[in-house]
């Protein structure tokens, strides 16, 4: 690694570290409303009422890869979304296309049941691996069959999806299954915005814990992110001014 890049990386990590330590509020702070997070808690209720499973698709991400952090955040979304559904007769279904995501998904579903002292209702068969294939279409094809085959109550898709997300969301629409979608890829985000009932854009998914749990430490994460975003804007503005002055001087 080039030394300049190393120093810059260390500096960024250091600033993020300091801001993280500074933001330590004991009470949750108010957050701006996001439609998907307003709807998410109602999905479990609808699943219990209809006796139909809630599906959480975690395609294309897994710990140990580039998307490790997103995998952890997606597991957090899965945990808080399916937590109320664990008291129902039908268990939520988790699907993944990466084998390394299976242990994390199994643990997340088990933790959700354990948190409600309903461990007897937990069954590992509700975490399913659908291999992604060469173009991630096999996973999309398999998930497209779920609204009909497993009579889903709702569809939450969080992962690394490209245009194939359209197939999954189209299947949801055909069976009148409400959907929430997020993709790390820009094409996937555009598809989610157009086709999903509620889409999460950019870094909104990273704040899921704060919205869905209301816990102070997770709200602090959102606050840290907002602060760092302003720091970044300020740095970019200063660099722009320096550039402008240099050009005027030269």
């Amino acid at each position: 690694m080039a030394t300049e890049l190393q120093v810059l990386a260390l500096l960024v990590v250091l600033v993020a570290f300091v801001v993280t330590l500074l933001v330590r509020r004991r009470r949750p702070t108010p957050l701006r409303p996001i439609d998907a997070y307003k709807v998410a808690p109602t999905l479990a209720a609808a699943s219990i009422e209809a006796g139909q499973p809630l599906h959480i698709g975690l395609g294309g991400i897994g710990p140990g890869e580039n998307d490790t952090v997103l995998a952890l955040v997606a597991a957090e979304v899965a945990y808080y979304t399916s937590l109320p559904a664990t008291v129902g007769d039908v268990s939520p279904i988790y699907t993944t296309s990466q084998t390394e995501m299976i242990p994390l998904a199994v643990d997340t579903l088990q933790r959700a049941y354990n948190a409600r002292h309903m461990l007897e209702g937990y069954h590992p068969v509700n975490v399913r691996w659908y291999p992604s294939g060469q173009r991630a279409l096999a996973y999309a094809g398999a998930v497209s069959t779920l609204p009909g085959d497993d009579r889903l109550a709702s569809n939450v898709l969080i992962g690394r999806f490209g245009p194939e997300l359209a197939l999954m969301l189209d299947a949801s629409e055909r069976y009148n299954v409400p959907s929430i979608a997020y993709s790390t890829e820009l094409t996937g985000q555009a598809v989610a915005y157009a086709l999903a009932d509620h889409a999460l854009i950019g870094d909104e998914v990273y704040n899921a814990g704060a919205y869905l749990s209301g816990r102070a430490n997770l709200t602090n994460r959102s606050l840290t992110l907002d602060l760092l975003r302003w720091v970044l804007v300020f740095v970019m503005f200063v660099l722009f001014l320096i550039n402008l002055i240099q050009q005027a001087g030269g």
Partner: protein
Amino acid sequence: MRVRSGVVLYATIVIATGLLTLVGLLVGDGLGLLSQLAEPVRGVTALLVRLVVLVVAFTLLIGVFNLFYVHVTRLVRGRSLSARLTSMVLLLSFVLALVLWVYTPESRVLLQETQVAIESSLAALICFALVFGALRVLRRRLTWPLLLFLLGMLVVLVAALPLPALAPLSPIFDWLVTVPVGAGARGILLGIALATLVVGLRVVIGQDRTYGD
């Protein structure tokens, strides 16, 4: 306050492993004393990364077991006939692939000639799903962001038309794609990168325990 020993153990392992890997990967040569201090850590980091690769490879076995177990259960207790049929087809393909691999390891009938063909037809279907999506956007309550989204989509579609009459407009289309669309995309990607950094750091220093509490 009662603190469970399991949580303390998880947190200790995560913080120690996370910090060691972070230091080992971030601090390279050419940073003077810092590099000298990080030298022993880099060996541990390399070992941890190798361990991750091994664990990830092992999860493939878990995946195969999961596939078999899930679909045998679904075949017996599926919620619908179509669910049972899907699982049956999957299990048959699994057994067939295994048998073919044992007897004719060089055969690619199932993969190249069957799966790739099916995936290609699915890829063709994406186009229709996207057109349907565009129509669905029009059916929804029109908001300013949706209007902007539709306008952007129309501009990109019109720009892609190979009409000579549109040639004078191509610099405007190029500017639109490079400047506002590029800036928006960069903004989204910067946001994701920042969020990844913050969440990763909070997990490493034990502020967020996403691994169970």
